[in-house]
């Protein structure tokens, strides 16, 4: 997904407005942007807090800034810069993180993105952009091009096979149908768990429809509420802890309402993972079932 992101960013950056900041990573990914816009990419070095503050500074001068990093560096390490400098000032900075969930399985707990939704969805102006496939990614980037604002783009580390391009329109709280099935009982996912969800569906929820919600966050709660109430049962699946994650967010959307939709959540077991292995191995052992 990283390479497609850069390809789309290059394509969307023709106006002299888009900047890309990196913190000394992105080898074999960011080069197309660097080649085309050498004066609009900066390596901030290994200094995430300064990088995020600078992103706010550039964005405050009528530019759109993309900050590219691995999920742990671009979130918790500079959380206050995101809160005060970007979200508070409502600046058009898209924080791009690679390695959703246990994408960097072998690198260990320090590099796993298991709590990033919890942090990023606590900022009132921040949109969560969590694509499940290449079409959703293209749709998301089109949305953010038209609506520049604080946003958190969570990418899968793996490249996805080029599927047949199908233009989809995405917006906050809107759901995208992936598999047709039961009209009232659905599986709802966010992010790169499509294959996982398809397997779970085949085993346990054969007749359920499968949907994804690629854009969500605090701003999207009321839209999501209006969608949730159309269904009797929703099973959420995500590659994140339950606490502060997508499933718990969905439940928050209907808290204190009379909406009777039953929501069940499947997620990565909420504990520190003290072993390493491939993404597939870790998901099989600790992931949603």
């Amino acid at each position, binding site marked *: 997904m990283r390479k497609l992101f850069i390809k789309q960013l290059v394509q969307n950056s023709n106006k002299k407005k888009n*900047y890309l900041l990196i913190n000394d990573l992105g080898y074999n990914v960011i080069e197309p942007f660097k080649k085309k816009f050498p004066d609009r990419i900066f390596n901030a070095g290994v200094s995430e*807090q300064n990088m995020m*503050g600078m992103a*706010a500074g550039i964005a405050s001068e009528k530019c759109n800034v993309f900050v590219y990093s691995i999920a742990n560096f671009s979130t918790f390490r500079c959380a206050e810069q995101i809160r005060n400098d970007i979200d508070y000032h409502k600046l058009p900075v898209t924080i791009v993180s690679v390695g959703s969930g246990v994408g960097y399985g072998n690198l260990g707990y320090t590099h796993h993105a298991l709590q990033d939704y919890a942090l990023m969805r606590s900022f009132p102006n921040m949109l969560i952009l969590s694509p499940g496939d290449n079409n959703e990614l293209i749709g998301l980037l089109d949305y953010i091009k038209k609506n520049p604002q604080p946003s958190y783009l969570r990418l899968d580390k793996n490249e996805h096979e080029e599927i047949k391009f199908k233009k989809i329109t995405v917006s906050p709280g809107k759901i995208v149908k992936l598999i047709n099935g039961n009209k009232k009982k659905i599986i709802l996912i966010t992010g790169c768990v499509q294959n996982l969800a398809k397997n779970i569906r085949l085993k346990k929820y054969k007749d359920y429809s499968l949907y994804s919600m690629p854009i969500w966050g605090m701003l999207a709660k009321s839209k999501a509420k209006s969608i949730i109430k159309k269904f009797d049962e929703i099973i959420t699946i995500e590659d994140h802890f339950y606490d502060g994650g997508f499933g718990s967010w969905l439940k928050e959307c209907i808290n204190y309402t009379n909406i009777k939709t039953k929501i069940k959540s499947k997620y990565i077991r909420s504990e520190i993972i003290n072993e390493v292995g491939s993404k597939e191995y870790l998901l099989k052992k600790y992931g949603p079932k």
Partner: protein
Amino acid sequence: MNKIIRNIRTNILNLTYKAKSSHIGSCLSIVEILAVLYTRILKKNDRFILSKGHAALALYCTLFEKKLISSKILNSFGSNKTILMNHVSHKVNGVEFSTGSLGHGLPVAVGKALKFKMNKEKNKVFALLSDGEMNEGTTWESLLFASHHKLDNLTIIIDYNKIQSMDFVHNVINIEPLKTKLLSFGCNVYEINGHNILAISRSLTRKNKNKPKIIIANTIKGKGISFMENNNLWHYKNPDIKELNTGLNEIKNRYA
């Protein structure tokens, strides 16, 4: 200039008394710096970031002198529903950026300076930092970056009043030799008396090439009111009625 400085100090004291707010010492140490910046230095498209956001009241009082905020707004300081947060807020006309957590202003200023330089825009960027911010990692991260990219459109002023929140700087985390440190980071560094109008003006207008400019402004915390000067009690405390009247008299006489 003397009149503006007197007015700013008088308003800081009156409003701190009224609002029972903290940080009067931190406000009083930067009055001359703000007065010079806003009357002689800042041009239309220049940017100024108060990184020591807890000295917000000094900036609000300066913006009032520049007629950027009304007396109604200024006098709302400390009341319910006011937009004048005790840490500087971008919702107030004339304020470039909200700060309050130390170590945030400089990275933002560096981002702005970088954008201007890359686009060959002539605007200058000024950031006013506290000496307490020399404890922050981001300050040094930003200096490395600004120096590497030769951001000579960036001027950093350090309000070196030698007292941070709890104690004298040299008792908390010694930052000396400050000038040597900053020089070694690749900046042009000037050390001045931060209450001397001419010295402030000269250092700010000095031509600058290839390096960020840093002005170490030696100041006195609580400057202008004898019993507040050099006393870290006034980082937190607000004056009672007797202290208010004594202070107002002192300001009137010293800045006549």
